[in-house]
């Protein structure tokens, strides 16, 4: 059953990664990508991750050209179905798809359509009837893209679902880390995800990819925003996915190689998870003195959009150690890579 949804467990495991020639259509060459959809990163093998990274390298090269465009997805319809407001991710996907010469359809589904009366299944069938072949979907409910994948005839690319997953963000984070860390590897590097882990699909997806890549991963935040992660760490460890969970920011940041701050949202106060934003900023904000606990030159990351002065100090966000704008550029390359690989798998 998984095969129907995911393309299967028999995904590329070979260490031999063949980097596709991204100037031509993906179906014209043998690329070792077996996943029909990208709904989560939990099933990606290290070879899969490598293929995405290498394909993104090729896309970065495209982006560096005077005319940053290849005809690879000419005639393909990429539909962006966003149930949640998002500027960055939507625009990033749109730019990525256009760079591949795809036709892009944008649908901003209002939040009200999530409620009863207009079902997701119906919407997905409609966009398919309108010609969608690759469906990039963002949705506020965890797992919604799996429901879409059940009924959609093409490929579904999860652009973020509820608290669950944000695959392309985790892939671009891994890509950015590899680009900036010495040796180009995250293996053994201490990487900290700081902040509202509980509500974060970015944190969840990064747990899968960074532990797969061998990072020494630390999750840090107020105890209320780490709920359930100790349980995950305990069970994941048995499976070789080790990470640490702590409410102590000093312990987390000490000798870190990279720190990823997460956005903190105002709603969290209303639900009694935090006393105040001020207190959060004082205790968990990524400030220059705190960053000094990390290794010299430790990377500073943020998936955006930032609340400067809350989870991250403006001088840190704009400082020399920040690779935040690079994350944005890499996001386009990663999304080009994933769209390209999925387009190849669709007809495979």
């Amino acid at each position, binding site marked *: *059953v*998984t095969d*129907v*949804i*995911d393309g299967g*467990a028999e995904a590329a495991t070979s260490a031999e990664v063949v980097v596709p020639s991204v100037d031509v259509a993906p179906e014209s060459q043998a690329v070792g990508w077996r996943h029909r959809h990208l709904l989560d990163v*939990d099933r990606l093998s290290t070879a899969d991750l490598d293929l995405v990274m290498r394909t993104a390298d090729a896309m970065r090269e495209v982006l560096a050209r005077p005319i940053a465009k290849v005809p690879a997805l000419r005639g393909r319809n990429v539909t962006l179905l966003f149930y949640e407001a998002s500027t960055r991710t939507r625009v990033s996907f749109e730019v990525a798809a256009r760079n591949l010469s795809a036709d892009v359809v944008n649908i901003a589904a209002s939040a009200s359509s*999530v*409620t*009863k009366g207009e*079902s*997701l*299944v119906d919407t997905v069938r409609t966009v398919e009837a309108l010609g969608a072949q690759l469906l990039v979907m963002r*949705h506020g*409910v*965890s*797992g*919604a893209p*799996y*429901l879409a*994948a*059940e009924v959609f005839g093409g490929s579904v690319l999860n652009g973020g*679902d*509820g*608290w*669950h*997953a944000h695959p392309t963000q985790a892939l671009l984070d891994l890509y950015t880390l590899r680009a900036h860390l010495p040796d180009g590897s995250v293996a053994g590097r201490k990487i900290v995800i700081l902040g509202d882990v509980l509500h974060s*699909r970015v944190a*969840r997806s990064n747990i899968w990819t960074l532990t797969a890549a061998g990072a020494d991963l630390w999750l840090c935040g107020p105890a209320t925003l780490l*709920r*359930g*992660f100790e*349980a*995950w760490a*305990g*069970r*994941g460890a*048995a*499976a*070789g*996915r080790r990470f640490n969970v702590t409410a102590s920011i000093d312990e987390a940041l000490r000798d870190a190689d990279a720190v990823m701050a997460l956005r903190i949202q105002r709603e969290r106060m209303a639900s009694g998870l935090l006393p105040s934003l001020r207190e959060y900023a004082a205790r968990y904000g990524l400030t220059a003195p705190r960053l000094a606990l990390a290794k010299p030159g430790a990377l500073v990351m943020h998936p955006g959009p930032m609340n400067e002065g809350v989870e991250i100090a403006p001088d840190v966000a704009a400082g020399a150690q920040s690779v935040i704008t690079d994350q944005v550029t890499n996001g386009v390359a990663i999304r080009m890579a994933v769209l390209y690989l999925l387009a190849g798998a669709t007809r495979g």
Partner: protein
Amino acid sequence: MTDLDLSRVWLVDPAVGREGPGELVVRDGILEAVTWLDESDGEGVDAAGVVVAPGFIDLHAHLREPGNEDAETVATGLRAAAHGGFTTVCAMPNTTPALDEPGVLAAIRAAAAASGSPVELLAYGAVTVGRAGEALAALGELADAGVVGFSDDGAPVRSASILRNALAYAGALGLPIVDHPEDATQTEGAEANDGFIATVLGLRGWSASAEETAVARDQAILADVCRDVPGARLHLTHVSTAGALELIRRGKAAGLPVTCDVTPHHLALTDEWVAGARRFAWEARTDGDPWRDEAIVAPPYASSLRVNPPLRTPADALACLAVLADGAADAIATDHAPHTEVDKAVEFGSASTGISGIETALGLVLAAVDAGHLTLARAIEALTVGPAAILGRTRGLVEGAPADLVVFDRSERWTVTADALQSKGKNSPLFGLELSGRVLLTMAAGRVAYEAPISVSA
């Protein structure tokens, strides 16, 4: 009228505490003779073949009529019950309108009569008017009309003082309060059992403590009330956590008039199923990681698995089996909760809670029996005399009475499919699964309520 001759079958009659090879004769719908064979005559007959037991009683089913006949009607619900081996069904009052006054009871009784089904329909009345949790419903009038207890199921009785009054008032009427133990302040927006699986899937955690707090509260109030009202009785339904079951065990040990039931899905399935695993609780590794041991064989977030209380951990499911085995749990109840396709073909978190389970109950329970977690006799007891006692009745293979029995083949396997279910509710997470113990015949009130397409060799 119906005649039936069954020879050399495995009889299970918890009313007399006996199981073994035997013969059974029904003439004109009356159970004329039940004969237990001695060792030599019964040679070669075992519990792996055709089994005959008293008809099952379901303490907890949602028949959806009136108000949501797209999901189920009294007629289809009773048909489904018969297919599951049940001959008595207690309908929950969370209909629209709620069964909070005798008129609604009369209406569903009329529907049962019109259905022609011999399956007995019993009903609970609501504890509060409109199940709104504010004012006591017409408990006395409902009792006079024949309800078998009171419940606001679907929701707990939120107010502790209302619960206190209800326990006292219903106790004086000789009827139990059937509470759905859930502290709603801890479950707002909750989607899946709090823990590893929910965290990974990004689902809002539904804590065990929400159930345990409610059980502790209910029992504390009961302890108080039953000092003044000797007839006060509390029945806790679909108890799902090891901690809640332990609290009930202690309550019983302290002499509290409390009883409880567990559901087939909570004793056999776990939260791993939400992640896409499809192994029974006793096959799971509580320290393991289903992503690692390749247990995940289906897509995650199947909305058919969204249920209240949520599917718990393997340890909780094993605790449900343990309390059934040692008698601390009184009954198995299905919490049959049919829903329409429209209410289930949505995102996991938006889906209505509930499993259409009255037809798969026996199969899941027998799977636990096959795995050695329960004896067949105890399983049947929890489906018959256990719930009967809570209703103040008995249930057994009684000579001279109208036949009320189920005949099933332990070794015959059937595949759960939408078409195989008689219920309108096709919201089962078990599609594609093979269960053993196909029901061949169900007789209620001396009439055939269900007969398998292949006739019984008599």
